[in-house]
């Protein structure tokens, strides 16, 4: 199967997935008990005010019509208006997404290093003390809940040894150094949480690849150990870890919510929690759709990368 054809079918499936997600969100929010207008305005609201709000929210129309209206607007880029603040959702979302994107990129960069380096060290020294020590550490971190890890790091580097700020509050006036310093702790937390899974997968697949015939032949060709490792072993070992990375990106979206909360980082995650607390339904819909889209896109990228790394997949079905 050619790469183009593969890409096409995967994109089609991704779009289908997102469509299903949109239907699900809509149905769930629709199924919430009680009248939305009453929930927003409170029990004391007058009948007139409720009526106005209902027509504002198009609540008088059938659900199917409202769904298509919403999804149609969404596809055109009109995300609607936040009920809580009255501002267009796009304006509310944009800076938050940017902040979270920055945080995620930093976390992802740290993640790559944190996943690759220990896994390679372990695989090359399998069975030795280093391997066991790293295994124990990753297992320990794996069993820690993320908010606990975040709090521990917070305590260590902001309270016990105060080298980093405890609160990751940034604003438009912050300099980039301030922003970066603020982001370090949340980013490291996220990176560790993701890396522990990947290290274990990558270690095992790398050990398997290092035992393979082609690595042995590469060694017996007289290639230097570094060439054997980076040219022959790693590209093939990384494929299983790619899927973990894609799943990790899904985790990142969930983890961002908690970690941002712990460090009070003004990102997408805090916005989602705020939206839920304020029952800002248009905002909830928009944030959930966007996180679903990110998740689906991450998996798409991982699939395509796997095909690019394994030429065999390109021709076999």
């Amino acid at each position, binding site marked *: 199967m050619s790469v183009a054809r593969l890409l096409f079918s995967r994109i089609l499936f991704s779009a289908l997935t997102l469509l299903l997600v949109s239907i699900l969100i809509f149905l769930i929010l629709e199924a919430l008990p009680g009248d939305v207008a009453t929930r927003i305005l409170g029990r004391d609201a007058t009948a007139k005010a409720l009526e106005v709000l209902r027509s504002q929210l198009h609540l008088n129309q059938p659900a199917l019509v409202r769904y298509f209206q919403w999804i149609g607007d969404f596809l055109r880029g009109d995300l609607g208006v936040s009920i809580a603040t009255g501002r267009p959702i796009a304006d509310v979302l944009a800076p938050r997404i940017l902040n979270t994107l920055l945080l995620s990129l930093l976390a992802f960069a740290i993640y790559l290093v944190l996943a690759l380096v220990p896994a390679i060290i372990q695989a090359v020294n399998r*069975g030795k003390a280093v391997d066991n020590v790293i295994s124990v550490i990753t297992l320990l971190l794996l069993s820690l809940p993320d908010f606990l890890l975040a709090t521990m790091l917070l305590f260590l580097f902001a309270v016990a040894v105060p080298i980093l700020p405890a609160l990751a509050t940034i604003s438009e006036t912050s300099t980039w150094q301030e922003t970066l310093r603020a982001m370090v702790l949340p980013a490291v937390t996220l990176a560790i949480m993701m890396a522990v899974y990947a290290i274990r997968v990558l270690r095992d697949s790398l050990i398997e690849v290092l035992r*393979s*015939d*082609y690595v*042995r*032949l*590469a*060694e*017996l*060709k*007289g*290639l*230097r*150990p570094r*060439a054997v490792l980076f*040219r*022959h072993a790693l*590209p*093939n070992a990384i494929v299983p870890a790619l899927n973990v990375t894609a799943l990790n990106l899904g985790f990142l979206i969930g983890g961002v919510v908690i970690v941002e909360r712990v460090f009070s980082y003004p990102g997408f995650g805090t916005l989602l929690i705020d939206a839920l607390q304020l029952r800002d339904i248009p905002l909830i819909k928009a944030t959930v759709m966007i996180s679903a889209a990110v998740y689906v896109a991450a998996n798409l990228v991982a699939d395509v990368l796997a095909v690019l*790394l*394994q*030429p*065999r997949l390109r*021709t*076999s079905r």
Partner: protein
Amino acid sequence: MKKLIEVRNLNIAYAGPSGWTNVVQDVSFEIARGEAFGLVGESGCGKSTVAYRLLGYGTINSFVQTGEVLFDGVDLLKLGPASLTRLRGNRIALVPQNPTTSLSPGMRVGPQIREMIATHKALPDDTTMERRIVELFALVGLPDVGHRYPHELSGGQQQRVTIAMAVACNPDLLVLDEPTTGLDVTTQRQIIQLLSDLRARIGMAMLYVTHDLALLAQIANRVGVMYAGQLVEVAASDKLLSAPAHPYSRGLIASIPTMDGTDRQTRGLRGVLRRDQMSTGCKFEPRCDFATTACRTTPQALELIADARSVACMRWRDAATQQLPAVVAGPHGRTAARSERLLSVADLSLSYQRPSIVDKFLGRTTHSVVRDIDLELRAGEVVALVGESGSGKSTIARAISGRLPPRSGAITLEDGPLSPALDGRSAEHLRQIQYIFQNPDASLNPRSSIRSILERPLKHFGIPADGKTLETVLESVGLHAGYLDRIPDQLSGGERQRIAIARALLVNPKLLICDEILSALDVSVQARIVELLRSLKEKHDVAMLFISHDLAVVQQLADRVAVLYHGELMQMSETASLLTAPLHPYTEMLLEAAPSLRKDGHVSRPPATPTLKATPGIGCPFAGRCPRQPGSLCADTRPPIQETGSGFVRCHLPIDGLGRHARSPQHMRSPAVEDMRLQSL
């Protein structure tokens, strides 16, 4: 000749759960410059361990070793990693056993050769890297395939690539680890031919490790026979094959099925190599027909018995002169012709792709892997299905066993039609057809005891069994009740295959489908399983569809042979007449490629018209490769079926003209066959 490599008193032992295991014991041999030395023995005899030590390679964990491996006077066992890296690939190169898994899957083959030349700075001054790589491909008879990924090449082409790689830096020594084991007979032949040719041209020394003595006969100057980690005989290859001195060598040679039909003066090996059952004296004593009590306690060492010939056996003189009752070879008791028809396959066409809706709409037809197969099996009859890999042998077996519903055609068992799909078949039908797979390691559940593996089919089919049933069936495959509580891991490959056969037999099948069941086993084990199958056929009237690429085994077992090429039956004939008068050009080619125990100087015949490509489904698939085809007729017209005395031939040439072809000794080493496959990619 000057010694290039000298192994002196090499000892290697691994620490296992039950103490030390001596993998290699006191092995000493040398290889002169330009000499080809063969190392032969059953699996687990330590031959590969020795071979990899010549590259200074081996697992460092938990082993002790003593002795020396001198390469040009330098002890490889004492060299540091950096010096070894400089030697490997550059002066000592490896041709691996399995090219498919040995080439890096994510890298084009050109760069894989390039990195080796670049690392060792072995590019000759007067050429460029690109030109050198093309030159290397040409040397092994490939077009410029540098831009291809390993999976885009056939097994034979992949092995050619690894050979090109191995000779890229003009090494002094080539270590070959069973380089043709996974290949077809015809491809095997081409590779052997290529290797001897390269040796003549480049003049490098070779260490050729194999369990296949017939191949060594074609390529090695001298051969060392290994048993349980020791060299038991070293001799010139022609001497060894014609007059083996050690009882083990004799047994090994006798176990090889040959097609020349000569009467055997010796008999094959009994038992298997078991490291846990070894006497303190001669290691071979438990399996030796000549053993005396003294053998059990006296360790044997190599001693010179003639010029350049040594044996580690104190009774070699007795062994060499004593005659043992010969085992009669060849199929016998041909009762099959009289018995009833069991299975018939008519007009079978198979395909792995299901035509999609779009294809149906456009009226496109997808390519069939197997076309127009007509086959009949009688009760107690063994029909062999032979052909190269990819010819559709296993695909036909899948269809008969119900795992691949045919696109068209009918399968009939006895008098009733057989449902095309597995879930449509009655329990009775399922019981009557049993399947034995190629690889017993993968076909037995590693977590179950042999007992529960054997009990499952009984329970499934509700066959009443008493305590004796399992014992009886184990006895019939030559094992005993002690095996019941073991797990597959504790068994050798041959024993596992026997369990697989026992499992199939338990339910009293009428038809056994044997899919290359011998190819993973040592010759000595093969010989005994052939014996077993033959007695099953005679005693229990079990019919077999025997899939194999080994014509010698086929000769011993099969009543009739069906020759398959690219999914079409080329010929169907009684075994004896097929082997003596092959008729079809493809059968002829297969027979010629089968190695004999004598150096036969076989040269693969180049295809007459490599450019000719048959119209799929219409022309003869063999057209382009056929050395005798009369013209474009073959590619465009469906060859007619011509009846012969015992079967049929599908060929345009009249039967009178077939089989009496004057063989032209064309000494072209053209792997043009593979080029064609390449072009059709």
